Each structure stands twice: as C-alpha cells, then as structure tokens.
C-alpha cells in the first residue's frame, strides 16, 4: 500500500509537501489509524492526533482521498491505492495533520452547549419521559470531530460568522431538549443571515459524518421553528 501524506513544519519555513510511504500487506494493518501508527514508528516526526481508536473521541478526523473521515474506523480495504492523507480542510495547520480547531470550538461555544434550567435542582437528576428522550436521538451522538464543518463550503468561506453544521446540530440538540428553558433565547441567537442562513443545503456534512448524523436536517428544523415563530 502506498501512502501520500501531507507534511508541514512551520519551524522550517518550507512550504507543505506530500511524503510517500509504503506499508507491506504482511504488516496487516486493518484500519487507517493502524497504518498511520506504523508509519509513525518509522518516521517519528510525523504529527497527527488520535486517542480512543474506536470512533468515540473524535481526535483523528482527517481528509483521506478527498473525503473527511475518522482514521480509526476507516478500513484500509475501503480506500483506493495510493491513499492520500491531508489535514481537515479550512482550518489553520499547526503541523502535518494537526489543525487548529479554535475557530470550530469558538462557534460551538456560541450556541451555549449546556442545559439551562432555572428550576430548583432536583435531588438526583432531571427526569425525561422515554418519548421526550427519544427526540435527542440523532443529535446527542455528535463527537465534535469537525469532519462536517470542515467539509462545508459555507464554513470555509465564513468560518468566523457561520456557525457551521456541527454547532448547528448541537443548537438543535438543546432546542429539542424538553428540560431546557431557553428555547426562545436560543432561537433569537440563531436568527442571523450569517450564523444560520449561510447554509445552502450542500449536505456535505451529512455525507461525511462518521457517526451517520444529519446536520442538514437539524438546520432545516431550526429554520422551521423560526418560521413558525413568525407566522
């Protein structure tokens, strides 16, 4: 298997380049992350993020053969040779495959991703009926890997003003939560030509999400809530 990996070291001042690596089939890597770890064993200067190696932590989102994926849950058998690995598009590169996620997290923070409820705190927990809990399915599973937002052309053009699919999916998650008491305020904060309406339903987000979530649908639901409020 041939790998072409994006290399960039800001300390050298050299422009980014693609380095070739070879992995023999008898080394038996199954997932892409295993192959990356084998490569790192040969060239320890290669930098990338990884942690849980089972698609839960969201650290190892990479652009592989032109598509954002999690390295740890991408079988090598799904990829065509040579495998070209680049950092997530649209974010500043710190080194090699490591990007600066600050613009992504900044947008995530603006939607206030926590439950706001002014009622006295209960002894144990705030209960929800199974039906109400079910409305969070397809929303709470997001691991904030950033694959969707960095695949979104609208986020590439306006990363400082458009919230991006990941933050909007999370906004929907808290709008849908029956225990939350700030639905109106949350909608107020979202109703903006840039924050919400830069989405043009390109749907790269839903296409690449490694957890199979659909941020486009969340954006449509938020727009419907805003429209209902107007009429």
């Amino acid at each position, binding site marked *: 298997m041939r790998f072409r990996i994006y290399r960039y070291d800001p300390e050298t001042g050299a422009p980014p380049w693609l380095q070739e690596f070879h992995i023999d089939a008898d080394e038996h890597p199954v997932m892409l992350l295993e192959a990356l770890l084998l490569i790192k064993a040969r060239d320890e200067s290669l930098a990338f993020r990884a942690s849980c190696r089972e698609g839960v932590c969201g650290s190892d989102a990479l652009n592989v053969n032109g598509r954002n994926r999690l390295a740890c849950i991408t079988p090598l058998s799904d990829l065509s040779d040579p495998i070209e690995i680049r950092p997530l598009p649209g974010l500043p590169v710190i080194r090699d495959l490591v990007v600066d996620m600050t613009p992504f997290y900044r947008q995530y923070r603006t939607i206030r991703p926590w439950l706001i409820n002014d009622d006295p705190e209960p002894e144990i927990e705030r209960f929800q009926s199974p039906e109400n809990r079910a409305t969070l399915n397809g929303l709470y599973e997001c691991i904030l890997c950033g694959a969707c937002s960095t695949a979104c052309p609208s986020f590439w053009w306006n*990363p*400082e003003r458009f919230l991006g699919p990941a933050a909007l999916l999370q906004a929907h998650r808290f709008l849908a939560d029956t225990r939350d008491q700030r639905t109106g305020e949350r909608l107020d904060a979202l109703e903006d*030509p840039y924050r919400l309406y830069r989405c043009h339903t390109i749907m790269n987000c839903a296409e690449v999400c490694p957890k199979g979530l659909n941020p486009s649908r969340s954006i449509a639901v938020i*727009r419907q809530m805003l*429209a209902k409020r107007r009429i």
Partner: protein
Amino acid sequence: MSSDRNLGSAHSGTVEWMLQRLTALYLALFLLFLGVRLAFVPPRSYEQWRTLWSGNLIRVSTLVFALGLLGHAWIGLRSVFRDYIRLAAVRLLVELTVGCVLMAQALWAFRILWR
C-alpha cells in the same frame, strides 16, 4: 479573515428565507399555468397574443410573477454576495447597483403590461 465582532444576532434572515420559498411556489404555479395555457390554446397571431394579456386578472398575475421573480433574484443574489464579497463597502455598492437594476426591471414589466 475578519474577526468575530461579538455584535450578537441580527435577528433577521427568516423572512427572506420564507419569501424565497413562497415566491418559488408562485413562480412554479404561474409557469405551469402559462405553459398549459399556451400549449393547449396557442396564440396564432400578434393580435391573439395581445388579447391574451388584455384582462386585468392575467395582467395582475403576470405582474405578481415579474415582481416575484425579481424578489426571488434579489434574495438569491444577496445571498451569493454575502458568501463571497468580504468587504462591506464593496458589497453594499454591488447590492445597490443590482437593486437599482431589478427595480428598473420591475417598472419595465409594469409598462409592458399596461401599455
């Protein structure tokens, strides 16, 4: 990259989004009606073509079509400008120019229909 100015939400965009869908619906229905009308009773001469637009109902609905089309174009073009034109001064200038052209076209449509 311009910075996040922390000015909060503009509290707008929803009306534009709704109008875009509403005008799209009207444009589609009107074009369907016009297509069917012209396919089944095609005007054979200039005179027949003129009499087709002599009633006030067809004139008003055609004017609404023209205004809907221009409004639809305005919302769509503004959206494209917001995506790509980063300098506010340049964007406002482009929007002003396009807005003037679209308004002139609206007046033109009115003149054609009530000549």
